[in-house]
């Protein structure tokens, strides 16, 4: 579905993403992990077109998307959430989702009220229907994360990029959020690329893991096999000696 081939991105002298290649199959959940500054979010920004790729290519469903603008990438079906939730502060929850419904995909003859109805479906799905008329700035962190998810799903994506969806949530909320992601995959048939720091969650959720360190891919595979790789342990825990 998505093929990333030899992608490199430099910021001045710093190579944030160096020669990374992997691919994603349909209906998979891919976990993207790595220590801080490994280039995970940069890779995500490259996928949604915020940054332009220096070299290499990104193909989505056989179509080159390397040089498309973010809004065009959104139209062909890639949507994302933010690490730090970025709601439209002065708009209500339903307002923000309605914007995504209207603009996410070409929908001919959709009036504002139709879009509002559609948006309320997504809000209901993430459990925020009761808060639809609350301004986004008054929502809690968990609700903001759910609002982000609703907004991302409302653009009717085929590939959903989650950037640390669990950061700052307590275990109960994290479990709820994980269920939400699973049911989103089931109901909307989305493929998910998931950056996560909470290992417990990502080990449970991901079909495959991709590990980055210093902008390079150091391993890829099933969660159990990846976690037994020495280089991954070194990257995360600082070598075998650190454990003692």
């Amino acid at each position: 579905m998505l093929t990333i081939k030899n992608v490199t991105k430099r910021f001045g002298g710093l190579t944030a993403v160096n020669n990374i290649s992997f691919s994603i199959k349909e209906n998979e959940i891919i976990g993207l992990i790595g220590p801080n500054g490994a280039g995970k979010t940069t890779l995500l920004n490259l996928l949604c077109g915020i940054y332009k790729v220096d070299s290499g290519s990104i193909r989505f469903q056989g179509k080159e998307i390397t040089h498309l603008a973010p809004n065009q990438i959104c139209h062909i079906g890639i949507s994302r959430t933010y690490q730090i939730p970025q709601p439209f502060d002065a708009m209500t929850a339903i307002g923000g989702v309605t914007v995504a419904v209207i603009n996410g995909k070409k929908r001919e003859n959709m009036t504002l009220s139709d879009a509002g109805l559609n948006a309320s479906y997504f809000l209901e799905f993430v459990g925020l229907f009761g808060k639809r008329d609350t301004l986004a700035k008054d929502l809690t962190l968990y609700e903001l994360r759910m609002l982000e998810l609703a907004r991302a799903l409302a653009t009717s994506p085929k590939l959903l990029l989650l950037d640390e969806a669990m950061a700052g949530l307590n275990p109960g909320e994290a479990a709820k959020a994980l269920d939400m992601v699973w049911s989103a995959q089931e109901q909307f048939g989305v493929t998910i690329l998931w950056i996560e720091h909470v290992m417990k969650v990502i080990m449970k959720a991901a079909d495959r893991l991709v590990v980055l360190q210093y902008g390079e891919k150091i391993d890829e595979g099933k969660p159990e096999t990846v976690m037994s790789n020495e280089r991954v342990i070194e990257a995360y825990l600082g070598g075998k000696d650190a454990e003692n």
Partner: protein
Amino acid sequence: MVSIELKRDRLLMRWKQQKYEWIIEPRYWRNPILWSLLLLVFPLFISGYPNILTMVTMANLYAAITIPLALQMTGTGRMNFGPQFYLGLGGYTSALLNLHLGFTPFFTLLATILICLIIALLLSPITWIAKGLYFSLITLILPLALLDLTYIFSDLFKGEVGLMGMDPIISLGRVTWNYVAYYYFSVFLMLLFLLVAEKISHSRFGLTMASINENEDVALMMGVNVNKYKVFYYVFPSILTGIIGWFIVHTFRTFAGVTYLPLDFMIKMLIIVMIGGRASVYGMIPGAYFVCFLEEILRSIGTSNYFVFPLVLIITLVILPRGEGLYGLYHKRHPRDYFPVMRVRRE
């Protein structure tokens, strides 16, 4: 028979099967027909006082300038500090074409629209590249540059004196009638702009506009073609402002850049935007009327006017409830109504 009955919050009137009710609290009087009627009947009582009539006409024109300005500020997500640039552009275009080439008012209108369209399209890329304070700075400088041009080429633009003797739109034979007619024209323009702005801001495009004002980058990620929208919301209100310039030229029949292009005119416009209701389109009308009346009243106290006028405006801004301006007094806001947040500095 007719029966009238006073409930706690409303007046009920029954006649046969019909029921009419009138909510007593003024902020629920949201009947646009009522207010439009008031605007239409009002000049008949004051037609004997041409100075008041001119003032009210001016208030209508201020509102007609600030309504597109409010639309522009939300649509591009930036504070425009030079709305009067297109006023000057439209005014000079129609005045010069009328004086030197003999265009009739109808053709000068077309020319004004065309010139404003071209110039605004040429300048619209500044909405893409100018971030933070720079958009405000650039738009601040444009009208001042135009003003300087009118001084430099004063043979053509007649610098400080201004151009005079353009054809009127309509001439009814008596001066008073003309004033009343111009008042109605200005009301028509104002209500037309209000209707257009209202229709835009309460449609799906208005919601998208709000998202651009909130956060451009996120809007872009949600598939909004931000660049296209910003060009539209820069160009379209500019044309509307140009039309006001055309109107001033063909009604007051004198046009000088000194009156409309300097900074104090801009400050008046921005104050109307803030005092009327922070870029909500309806608020511009009470804002414009308030500022015009205040100016007229304070003119009598002489030079201390320069001190008292801003003081009164500051006090008004502070004491108005919830920062929603004059319109907030009248209108009870539903949470779903988007109320724009104006920021001069943006990332």
